[in-house]
């Protein structure tokens, strides 16, 4: 009996198992979409409560990952609209002076931080498409299915998002160098 089937029969242990398998992925996506730890935790909690509530409605043959991604995007969108949090350039943390032996790692971490800030400045739909495609590594077709868009729309969104992100990160990285 698969975990999914056992979950449908009302097994709390199976639900916990599925949550353990997917909670880091859900949290990671929520963090990239919201760029705020507390909001991401709230979003992940809401996602799994909805998963629990809708066990019987889910199609076992299609798996639960696309459903989880879709609900995560929707919940994060609702939270972002409700709280209207925005991260500006001034909030990008100042670079720390790295130790010589850790210089490369620290520099890379700073670059990732800049990319995170760049993501937060993208529009809602572009950010969701880019996170699912380039961070999560899903195919364009999968992203289109999750977002309820056509593949052409998703290509257009990720194309625009990549160019905007490159402009943002390129400007900051050049400034720091």
């Amino acid at each position, binding site marked *: 009996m698969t975990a999914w089937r056992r*979950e*449908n*029969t*009302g097994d*709390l242990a199976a*639900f*916990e198992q599925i*949550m*353990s398998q997917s*909670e*880091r992925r859900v*949290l*990671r996506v929520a*963090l*990239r979409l919201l760029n705020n*730890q507390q909001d991401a*935790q709230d979003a*992940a*909690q809401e996602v*799994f*409560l909805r998963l*629990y*509530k*809708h*066990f*019987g*409605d889910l199609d076992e043959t299609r798996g639960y990952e696309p459903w989880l991604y879709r609900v995560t995007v929707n919940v994060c969108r609702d939270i972002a609209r409700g709280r209207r949090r925005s991260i500006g350039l001034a909030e990008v943390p100042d670079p720390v002076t790295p130790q010589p032996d850790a210089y490369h790692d620290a520099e*890379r971490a700073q*670059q*990732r931080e800049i*990319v*995170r800030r760049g993501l937060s400045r993208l529009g809602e739909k572009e950010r969701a498409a*880019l996170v699912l*495609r*380039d*961070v*999560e*590594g899903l195919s*364009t077709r999968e992203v289109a299915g999750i977002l309820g868009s056509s593949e052409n729309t998703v*290509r257009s969104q*990720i*194309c*625009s998002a*990549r*160019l905007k*992100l*490159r402009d943002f*990160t*390129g400007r900051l990285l050049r400034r720091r160098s």
Partner: protein
Amino acid sequence: MSCSKFETDLALYAGDDLPAGRVARIESHLAECADCRALAQDLRASQALLSELRDEPLDDAMVAQVHHRVLAEVKNTPWTWGAGFTPRGALAPLLTLAAALLLAVVLLWPRHQPKHVPVARVEPAHVTPIAPMPGPDIVPVRHRVVRRHMRPAPAAQVGPPLLVQFVTDDPNIVIYWLVDQKPQGD
């Protein structure tokens, strides 16, 4: 940027999203355009950083906090276990049984009570004439003819009821039947 018409394709090319038919054209252009090569390099650098975000470790405490919050919430819900309210959950057998009982009650519940319940069936061969009894006159039973458009007889013309006695196989059972007399106008 001098080659703005290639920007879109370059952004798709950086993520391997460019249709195969346009890859050759963009690669041919990159071979001769330094600005576009620089753009493609920047885009690939961004792609690499984005993919690194996927591998960044999450704070275990943050994950555990969400985990415990969800389980606490789930265990405190009034519907507890049962996969929500869906029939495929643990409530399914109870719901099915309740539905079957309800259906049986609806189907078997008497719609109406019969107005006349026969006490016993009497074979015509066993009907025997009886001696007159004191009281109302006893006359042979006649089928009452019901005529349509019959005028109602005045109440004063209806005679006294007749008493008919039926004898059954069981000597302990005797049936008496009071029959209204036919109006005298017929």
